[in-house]
Each structure stands twice: as C-alpha cells, then as structure tokens.
C-alpha cells in the first residue's frame, strides 16, 4: 500500500459513488486464512450479516430520503445507498460459494431475514408521526453500526497479520475494498441522524440497542459457522480467549479495543471523522484490484 503519512486524515465534502467491483471466488479455499478456521469463520460472519444488514440500511435510507432538506447530505446519502447495495451483493456471492463447499449458511440467514425484515422492518399501520420516528430511530441504529463498520474497515486496512498469515488475496481485497468504502463514507449515517434529530439520547439509544445486538449476532454466527463447517465436525470451539489470541497475532480486531471503540461513540464530542484515515482509504480504493477492474468496464 502506498504511504500516505503526510495526508490530511479527513477529506471534506467528498463526492460518494458506488464502485462496480467484481470478485472471482472460484478458487477460494474454505479456510481462506490457511490453518486458521477460527479466525476465518470469525471474519466470515461478515458474509452472513452484511447482505441482509446492508440491504436493510438501503431500505432505511431510502425511507429517510424525503425527510432530508440539505442537498449535499441528500447526495451523500444516495452515494451511501449505492455503495451499501454493492457491498451486500459482494458478500452474498461469498455465501453462495460457502454453500457450494458444503457449508450451508441458510439457517442463520433465515434468522437474519426475520430480524431485518420483520423485527426491524417497515411496519404497516403506523401513524405518520410514528412512522417518521421509526425511520429516525432506525437511522440511529444504522449510525451506530456504521461506527463499527468504519472501525472494522480501518482495521482491515491496517492488518498486516492477515498478509503474514497468507490469507487469500481476493478475500483480502474484498475486506479492504469494503473497509475502505466504510471509512470513506463513515460520516454519512451519523450526519443524517444528526440532521434528523440532533438529540444526544437518540444517538445513545442507537448504540445501546444495536451495539450489544451486533456482538450477540456475531458470537452466534461464529458458533454457527464452526458447527456447520463440514471439515471441522465441531472440533474447534469458539471462546473469547481464542479471539484475543487470534487478535494478538493480527488476524482479528482485538475485542477489548472494539469495546472501547464502541464506548467512544457515546462521548458528547464524538464525530466519525475522528476515527480512521480517509487518505489511506481513498488511496487503497485507487489501488484495489477489484475497484480498478471496475473502472475499465
């Protein structure tokens, strides 16, 4: 990755647009971090969560569009929507590949569909005001989750441990391309939430509800994948100790740091631009094989 040490960490007023990436999964090994099924599947949870989750982001933000009064914010939201739609698609393709390799993700995905469509979906029969409140509340959930996606994206861009472990290069590009776009658009959901409701309580509720939910879904996902992996037959058991050990070797983000990062979201003066580097993310996007191939289409 080219050095970007001297660049500003924040880029103002970026034009956001989706990139038409493609990945070829035909040669992806089931354990794409060689001999590291636990770390592989801990990251694989992303492929379970993101397609449903990001499509839900897209629906929520489309519902929020009519509430936006600022032209620039509206354009950023539209750029965000397109990027998340492409993210969902890209991770979905990995799921299909898992299924082809004998790991059936569908029981877990069925639960997520229920969560994002039924529990967190649009509800019929609400009054106009309740509907509006619902949209803003869900924007606040998205803003809190986007704090973590930017955290994880920043980690993916700075994860030499994965290179050392000789992780599959296409998967690394997927994680870093996605991570870079997460860093690139890290302020959009937060700015939208503040635009619609500048209240501190809304922000806090967003994190208090979605933070623990995300952790819980992740833990369940790791357990599920390890149990569903046909080559492991339940031999690898998940634990926080294993997660910290993998983090020490640079293969996973550190759970304690992740928790601290979540707490930073609650600080009164918080803004997403305080975390991660736009320069690094944008530079990666100009380097990423998938994003560069998209250009010549």
């Amino acid at each position, binding site marked *: 990755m*080219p*050095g*970007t040490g*001297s*660049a*500003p960490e924040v*880029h*103002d*007023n*970026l034009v956001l*647009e*989706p990139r*038409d990436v493609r990945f070829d999964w035909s040669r992806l090994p089931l354990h794409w971090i060689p001999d590291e099924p636990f770390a592989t599947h801990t990251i694989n949870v992303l492929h379970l969560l993101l397609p449903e989750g990001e499509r839900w982001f897209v629906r929520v933000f489309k519902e929020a*569009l*009519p*509430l*936006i*009064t*600022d*032209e620039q914010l509206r354009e950023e939201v*539209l750029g965000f*929507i*397109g*990027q998340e*739609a*492409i993210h969902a698609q890209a991770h979905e393709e990995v799921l299909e590949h898992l299924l082809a390799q004998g790991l059936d993700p569908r*029981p877990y995905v*069925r*639960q997520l*569909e*229920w*969560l994002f*469509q*039924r*529990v967190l979906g649009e*509800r*019929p029969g*609400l009054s106009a*005001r*309740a509907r*509006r*409140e*619902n949209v*803003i*509340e869900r924007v606040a959930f998205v803003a809190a989750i986007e704090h973590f996606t930017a955290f994880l994206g920043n980690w993916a861009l700075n994860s030499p441990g994965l290179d050392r472990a000789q992780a599959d290069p296409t998967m690394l590009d997927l994680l870093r391309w996605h991570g870079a776009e997460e860093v690139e658009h890290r302020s959009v959901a937060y700015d939208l939430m503040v*635009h619609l*409701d*500048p*209240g501190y309580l809304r922000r806090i509720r967003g994190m208090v509800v979605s933070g623990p939910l995300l952790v*819980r879904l992740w833990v*369940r996902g790791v357990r*599920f994948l390890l*149990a569903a992996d046909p080559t492991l037959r339940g031999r690898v058991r998940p634990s926080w100790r294993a997660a910290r050990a993998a983090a020490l070797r640079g293969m996973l983000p550190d759970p304690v740091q992740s928790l601290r990062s979540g707490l930073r979201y609650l600080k009164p003066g918080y803004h997403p631009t305080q975390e991660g580097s736009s*320069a690094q993310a*944008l*530079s990666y996007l*100009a380097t990423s094989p998938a994003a*560069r191939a998209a*250009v*010549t289409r």
Partner: protein
Amino acid sequence: MDRTNPQAPPDLYGRPQADPFMRRLTAFGDRYTPALGSRGLRRNPRLPAPRALPALVLVVTGHRPVAEDVVELRLADPSGGVLPGWQPGAHLRLTLPSGRERHYSLCGDPADRTSYRIAVRRLADGGGGSREIHDELHLGVRLTVRRPRNGFPFCGEQRLLLLAGGIGVTPLLPIAREAQRRGLDWHLVYAGRTLATMPFVEELRALAPERVTLLVGRIPSGAELLESARPGSAVYCCGPAPMLAAVQRALDESPAGTLHFERFAAAPITDGKPFTVQLGADGPTLDVPADRSALDVLREARPDLPYSCHQGFCGTCRLHVLSGTPEHRDRRLTSEERADGALLPCVSRAAEGDRLVLDI
C-alpha cells in the same frame, strides 16, 4: 416473508422449535416500535428543525485569458466575506445566468479564502456553457455556486505521477502545489495540442521546473504517459476520456499500482431513441428525449426517487414496469427479475415512440 406469521424462525442447530433468542428479539421489537413517538422516545420538539446549507451567491471579480481559448475566472463573496474552504481536487458547480449548470475544478490556492479560481476552455461543440462563460460572465455578474465538493481527493502518497491532458490540468495544479509544499516526490506530465493552448505552464514551472514535463503536439500513448512511473507511484490522471482510458489500459504493465481519476457519474447515452414513461396506470405521461435518461425525466416529477450510480449496476433506482416493453441496458438485473417487470431507469429505455407504464 410472511408478515402475518407470528412464528420466529427455527433454531440454528436443527432443534424443532422457534429460536428463543429470535423470539425475544421479536417480542422486543413488537413493543419498541409502537412506543416510538411517545414521550422520551421521540425527537425533542424544542430542538432546531433540519437545516439546509444555502448555496453561495458569488460575483465575478476576475476574467482574463490565460491561454488560447481559455479564460480564468475569479469568484468572490459580494461583500468580501470568507469563502468555504476546500481541498485540492475539489470542484464548483456554477449555475449560469441562462440556467445551465457546469462543473469546474478549483485551480487556485486553498489557502486563499477570499476568492475561488477556475479556468474554462471554450468548447465550440459543447452545450453553450463555456461560450456563455467566455462571452457573458463579465466582471460584476452574480451567479449561484454550490459549495465545493471533492470527487478527486488527493491522498498525499509519497511518490506521485500527475498526468494532465489540456484543460484537465486544473485540479492537478493545486495537487502539485500541495505536493511541493509537503516535500513529496512528484512529477507532472502535461500533454496538449500546442503550447499556446496550455494554461498554467509557467505557474507549474515556477513550482519546480525539473518536475514538469510537457508533451506538445501529439497524442501520447498510455505507456508514454506512464514512462516515469516507479514502483509504488500513485498516478493522478485528469484529461480527455481517451487519455484516461489509455492510462487505465497501460497501468498493469507499469510499475505504478495506484490510479486516481475524477469520476463522472453518467456516461453519455449512446443511440437512445425518444420514448415516453407514464407514472402509474392513470398518471401523467412524460417524454424521454433521445439524449436523456428516463431517471432524469422521472426525477423532475418525483424528486425523492432514489438512485445512485447512474450506470445501471447498483440497482438503487429499480422500478416496476406495469406495461410496455423495456430495452434493458443495465448489468445488474437477472433475467428472472426482468421477466418479473424490474427496470433500472438510469440506463434502460424503450424502442422509439414506445410507452412504459411504471408503478410509481
């Protein structure tokens, strides 16, 4: 999904029961959602309403030729106020007195907060925007300008190769200046028809003459443009579309691994024919001319229609066709989705004179 089915989905491990965690989440959601809007769970009505930043109204304070067919324009706040800041690579959107809208890269110094500088080449075959700027934007004319936005951000890589084609030099000028200021290893290759048509040559040479190479009088190949690239070089390219395409094609053969360029959302429409769209079975009918997309036309009637990529790959603008035969031009929808009536109006069209009735 069946919304009326009260059953949470089954357990993850094949046990014949609804998953208890999912059941709890469902129960939580069923209480939480209707409670929103009640006291304590709603937007505090005393907080200020969503605000919109207004566009700028600026006055032309400078208008001078800087090369053959190129004028430099300076725009400032009419009362001399400080302008919103910007970073290298940013552009302005001007609304000209005729109502035309045009984007131009900022080519001045970001440290100068009292005026914006742009440079405009007169295009004989353009839509008349550049001619209007050349001939009618005299000193003192006021115009509406959107705040600076950046579609070509500079990331400050240590080793830089800047490739400029003609008027494409404008965003690269502040980038070169910034690179020089930070002491980065930069090189600029500037191609143009004749020296007289190339603005800002002296200004660039004044930064560091040994870092500027001019290629005058011929169209350089991609390989030639990338000749001075070294391992790890980050390339920033701005110029006519064929130049960018040539650089993209030659990049894999060069030691440079990074290519930045300004992205323009909508590709021009090729062999489109005029057709009509109807908004709903008994809604109004709108004409889509040969050179505009259905999405553009629809957005005039429905400003809240979502869209994103303008290129038929993200699926955001998806609509449902009630009747009519679309001519699909996207690369997103599957044949089942198309058979099902899905349409991406940012690119897809219909045969000449046909009508598409859309479910909006």
